[in-house]
């Protein structure tokens, strides 16, 4: 696995197999996109524009119609079944708008659930998860997430996403359900944690206020066959440097 090359997309195209989708063209159409080590990229676009779908394609949860997704230099979609799932579990972290914490499991167990698929020895899971939560400011690891504040739940979600030391973190509208003040704190947490752990971050949002937080920002609509974006190439029309 190549940690210096967290993500490369080539000629990626996807559409859902419905008559409506087929008529309206590609749901996702990305000519080229690359992310360097520890790089953070904001992907903007309107609601329903295919941002989440792109993240699911990158995570290997959907199969593209065309193109390739390389995570850490490995073509994710060339892997099948359990191998792809395990690769995703160990190398990609995901953060969701509504956190999607496991109901009925404590905060630390939510983190340990991610570690089930890591190479870390089982006996070290709990200590590691407790430490990670403490670093992220959660002092009550055995709490039921339902009893935690929204901010604390976000911390658990972030801890779970980075628990396996992924090379890439995908954050799908992570602040969409938070009030503006909490959104700032949440984004600080996500971005700082990814930086500290050396993970690249691909974050989607339709919130204009998020733009200033990222060095690289791309509108999904500009990533089509005409456009291309790599860290080393010249910025596309809509790619705005800081």
């Amino acid at each position, binding site marked *: 696995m190549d940690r210096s090359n967290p993500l490369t997309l080539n000629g990626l195209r996807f559409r859902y197999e419905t008559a409506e989708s087929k008529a309206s063209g590609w749901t996702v159409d990305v000519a080229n996109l690359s992310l360097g080590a520890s790089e953070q990229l904001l992907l903007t676009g309107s609601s329903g524009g295919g941002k989440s779908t792109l993240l*699911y394609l990158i995570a290997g949860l959907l199969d593209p119609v065309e193109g390739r997704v390389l995570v850490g230099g490995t073509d994710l979609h060339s892997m099948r*079944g*359990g191998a792809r799932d395990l690769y*995703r*579990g*160990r190398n990609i972290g995901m953060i969701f708008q509504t956190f999607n914490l*496991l109901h*009925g499991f404590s905060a630390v167990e939510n983190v340990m659930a991610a570690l089930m*698929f890591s190479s870390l020895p*089982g006996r070290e899971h709990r200590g590691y998860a407790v430490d990670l939560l403490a670093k992220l400011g959660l002092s009550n690891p055995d709490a039921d997430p339902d009893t935690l504040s929204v901010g604390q739940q976000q911390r658990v979600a972030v801890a779970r996403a980075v628990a396996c030391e992924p090379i890439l973190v995908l954050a799908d509208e992570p602040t969409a359900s938070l009030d503006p003040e909490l959104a700032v704190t949440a984004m600080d947490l996500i971005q700082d944690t990814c930086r500290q752990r050396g993970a690249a971050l691909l974050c989607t949002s339709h919130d204009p206020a998020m733009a200033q937080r990222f060095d690289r920002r791309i509108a999904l609509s500009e990533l089509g066959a005409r456009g291309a974006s790599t860290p080393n190439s010249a910025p596309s029309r809509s790619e705005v440097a800081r």
Partner: protein
Amino acid sequence: MMTDFTIIKRSLRLRLFSTLITALTVAVAVCLMLVLLSLRDASRSAFNRGSGNIQLLLSADSSPMVSVLNAIFYANPPARAVKWPACQELLAKYPVDFAIPIQQGDSYRSFPILATTTQFFSAFQPNGDEKWKLADGEFFKAEFQIVAGASVAKVLGLKTGDSFFITHGISGINDTNEEERASGGDFPTMKAALAQMHRYSKYKIVGVLQPTGTSHDRALFTDLNSAWIVHAHEKRKLKDPTVTQTTAADLAASDQLITGVYVRFKTAPGSSESPALYTAYDDLKRHHPELTVALPGNEIDKLFTIVSNIDEVFVAMAAVVMLSSGIAILLALYNSMEQRRRQVAVLRVLGCSQVRIFGLVITEAALIGVFGALGGLVLSVMVNQIAARILDAKLGLALQPALLGTPTVLILFAAVVLASFAGIIPAVLAYRTTITRSLRPLG
């Protein structure tokens, strides 16, 4: 450390009520199946135990089956009697090991009394090679002495030295509630009318038997002469009201009535076979149509052939109940899948494969089956004990149901396999969960 088992455990705990109810349905089905099978086996061995070492039964009952049920299992007092001297004469020409006369028809507080000879305790063995054993006292040696079976003594609280009048026929009448009846107590009129107390002499308990696990545990045993004397005395008194005493010397041949004879023939040296048995059986049947000749073993086999059809219906019903419990597991898991789509999707995102998700759901279903099977096993032990007590009290059938053996293991295994099968459809649903749809924000 989190394991697949932790996930399954939490899932079951989150739906605790549903889990318990579903496991309970499996438990009831397993229990039903185990109880039916164990009671069937236990009742068969109980019937076999009761006849002990008797090879042939002579009586005047309406059929060999009735004869066995009455004389060995105390189902009803026999309706007809035969003369013991005539029977003795008849049996004298065969190589008989023992011929024990029995007379039934009297009772004490609903428990049957069997009047017999001392040979009943010395030669007849009710259960395999086990001889009668006394828990207290001694076997009867004289007239108006009585020995109580283990269950009777326990239920009625009888002990050596107690004495009482016995009753003609089977009823709840006795010298205690007779007084209650006289004082206006609540007592069934019909039973009271049918009952007739033998007031010639009280009987005294001289011994209490140890349990034998047979029908004889719920009977009382007394000397045959005593039975003849009390009945003869009442007949004599009808003719001459001034008669105050009757002894064995007053007994005529017509007074010496019995309701059956337990017979065993001599065996050939070094063999357990009795060559005379079938010759005597055929001979007695052919030449003495006034007698009912029964081979207890054959009659018990016939009885079980008759009831085995009903038995199979019950077992089939239990199998249907078990199948229903499988459907209950399927429904419970199927209904829970809607709530669990998000959990499945999150686990997939974290790295869990589809096959592993499938396995989690199947294991969860199998665990419900395991809980149900174990619960059913425990439940069946309790139900067996209760059923054995009821059957002992109501029918005098001393059952010793056991749950060991291959059938039990097979039923428990079948319950777990059925539960696992019931998990297949929910597991396929979990396997095919659309992650992208399941992870969408709620609302």
